[in-house]
C-alpha cells in the first residue's frame, strides 16, 4: 500500500464533517478529500437510486466582473469557444479554456446571474487541479474594465440523484422550479445560497455555493434527510464515467482539442463560424476536415477493467490509441472505459483489443453515455405555441 504525504494539503470547510462521518481521506488535487465512506459501490448505487451529497469545495469558484454583460461576455469569448453574449439570465453553459493551439487548459461551468442587478457578472467553476493555470490564463488576458475575482471563502456542495429534488426542496423550495443548467440565488433554511441545477453524475441534482462558515449547516441539514447519504470522490468518478463525462487531466488536457475530445457541443454555432477564440483556425480546420483521433466509449468484454493508460490496438495488434479513463461501472455491472482511438475505429461497433497486463482483451467501441442521463428538463410553459 502506497504511503501518502499530507504535505501542504488544503482542507475544505467540511473536512471535520468528513472525519466525523468516517470518510477515508486521501490527497486529491492538493486537498485532503474523502474517497469513500461506506464503500464506493454502495455510494454509487445510492446516488443512482436516491440522493448523494458530495463536497466539491476543492473546485475553484471564480468571477468576471465588468461594466455590463456585453463587455464581460466578450472578455470570456476571447478565451473560450462558447456563446456567452447569448447566454440568458440565470443560465449555465459548459465551456473550455483553450490554448493558442486550440487545446484544452480546463473545462468549466459558466453562470450568468439571474438578477439583472448583477449585470456584468459571470461566475465560473473550475477544476481544483487547474486553478493556477486558469487564474494565470484569464487574469492576464482581460480587457480594461473587466476584473477577475476569486471566491476562496465559499464552499461548494453537490446533491445528486433522482430524489435530490425532494430532499433539497424541503429546505430550499425555490430550487424545485429550476430547469437543467439554470441557476438562481435562493434561501436555504435562512441561508442565502447560489444554487444551480447541474452536476457530474448524469442524474438530476443541484450544486450549491455557500459561504464557507455556513457550509456545515447546509450539509448537516441535507444529510438529515432520509434520501441523502454522503458520497466520496470514488463514486463521483464511477458516476461521471458511466455518464460519459470527461475528467480533466485524464480525458482532456493540453494535448487534446475539443474536436478530438468530441466536445462539439461546447463549440457554439456562432463561434464556430466567427472564430475569434484561441486556436480558432486549428479548431475550425478540424471541424471541416476531421481529426486523426477521437474520444470514444469502450466496452471491454469479460470482467477485467482496463485502466487509464491501457494501450488500444486493432485486431491485428497494431496500436490505435489509449484508454484515458477506465474502471468498473456499478450500474452497468461490468467494466467500462473511454479513450482516444484512430478515427477509422471511432464508429460504435468497431472491434478493438485492450492490452491489459500484456494480454489483448477484446472490446467494442460504443456510444456514450453508458448509463442514460436523467437531467430535469422543465416542461415548456406553453407547449401549444412551440
Amino acid at each position, binding site marked *: 500500500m502506497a504511503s501518502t504525504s499530507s504535505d501542504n494539503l488544503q482542507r475544505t470547510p467540511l473536512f471535520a464533517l468528513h472525519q466525523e462521518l468516517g470518510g477515508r481521506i486521501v490527497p486529491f488535487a492538493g486537498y485532503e478529500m474523502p474517497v469513500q465512506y461506506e464503500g*464506493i*459501490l454502495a455510494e*454509487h448505487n445510492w446516488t443512482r437510486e436516491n440522493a448523494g451529497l458530495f463536497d466539491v469545495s476543492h473546485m475553484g469558484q471564480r468571477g468576471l466582473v465588468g461594466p455590463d454583460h456585453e463587455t464581460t461576455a466578450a472578455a470570456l469569448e476571447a478565451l473560450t469557444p462558447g456563446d456567452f453574449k447569448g447566454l440568458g439570465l440565470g443560465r449555465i453553459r459548459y465551456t473550455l479554456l483553450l490554448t493558442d493551439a486550440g487545446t484544452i487548459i480546463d473545462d468549466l461551468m459558466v453562470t450568468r446571474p439571474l438578477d439583472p442587478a448583477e449585470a456584468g457578472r459571470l461566475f465560473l467553476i473550475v477544476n481544483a487541479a487547474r486553478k493556477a493555470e486558469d487564474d494565470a490564463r484569464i487574469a492576464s488576458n482581460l480587457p480594461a474594465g473587466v476584473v477577475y475575482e476569486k471566491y476562496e471563502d465559499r464552499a461548494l456542495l453537490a446533491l445528486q440523484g433522482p430524489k435530490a429534488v425532494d430532499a433539497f426542496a424541503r429546505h430550499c423550495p425555490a430550487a424545485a422550479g429550476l430547469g437543467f443548467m439554470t441557476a438562481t440565488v435562493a434561501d436555504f433554511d435562512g441561508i442565502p445560497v447560489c444554487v444551480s441545477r447541474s452536476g457530474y453524475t448524469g442524474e438530476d441534482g443541484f450544486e450549491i455555493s455557500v459561504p464557507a462558515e455556513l457550509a456545515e449547516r447546509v450539509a448537516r441539514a441535507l444529510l438529515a434527510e432520509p434520501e441523502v447519504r454522503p458520497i466520496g470522490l470514488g463514486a463521483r468518478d464511477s458516476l461521471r464515467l458511466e455518464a460519459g463525462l470527461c475528467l480533466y487531466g485524464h480525458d482532456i488536457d493540453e494535448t487534446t482539442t475539443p474536436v478530438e475530445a468530441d466536445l462539439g457541443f461546447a463549440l457554439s454555432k456562432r463561434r464556430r463560424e466567427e472564430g475569434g477564440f484561441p486556436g480558432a483556425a486549428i479548431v475550425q480546420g478540424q471541424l471541416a476536415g476531421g481529426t486523426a483521433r477521437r474520444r470514444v466509449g469502450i466496452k471491454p468484454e469479460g470482467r477485467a477493467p482496463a485502466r487509464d493508460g491501457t494501450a488500444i490496438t486493432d485486431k491485428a495488434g497494431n496500436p490505435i490509441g489509449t484508454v484515458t479513463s477506465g*474502471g468498473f461501472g456499478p450500474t452497468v455491472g461490468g467494466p467500462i472505459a473511454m479513450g482516444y482511438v484512430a478515427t477509422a475505429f471511432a464508429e460504435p461497433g468497431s472491434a478493438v483489443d485492450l492490452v491489459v497486463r500484456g494480454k489483448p482483451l477484446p472490446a467494442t467501441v460504443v456510444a456514450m453515455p453508458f448509463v442514460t442521463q436523467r437531467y430535469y428538463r422543465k416542461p415548456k410553459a406553453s407547449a401549444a405555441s412551440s
Partner: protein
Amino acid sequence: MIRFTEDHEWVRVEGDVATVGITDYAQGQLGDIVFVELPAVGRSLKKGEEAGVVESVKAASEVYAPVSGEVVEVNATLETAPETVNSAAEGDGWFARVKLSDTSELDAMMDEAAYKAFVDSL
C-alpha cells in the same frame, strides 16, 4: 497452521499444500473488489513474483506469491463472484492452492498474533 506476510497475504498449510489468499485487512483497504485474476493451474510460482491481480472499483493491485510451488487449484468462484473476497477474505475468498516446494519459506512469516500486531502498527 496459518502464516501471514507483510503484503497482507495469508497461507494456510495442510500437509505440503498451502491455501493462499489476501487478508481481511487487505480487502478492507482495497474496497469493493470487482475482478480477480488468478495464476494458471500448473504454473510454478516463485515466492515474491507476481501471481495475480485484484481490482477494486478504483484501482488494480498486484498479488505476489507468498510461497514457492506449483499451483494445483484456483478458486473458480472468484471469476463470477469476486466480491467473495470482501465478504470472506480468509475463508471462501481464497485465491489458490499451492504445492509447496520449500516449506522453510514459512519460517520467516508471521503467525496470527504477530500479524495482528503488524496491522495495529500501520
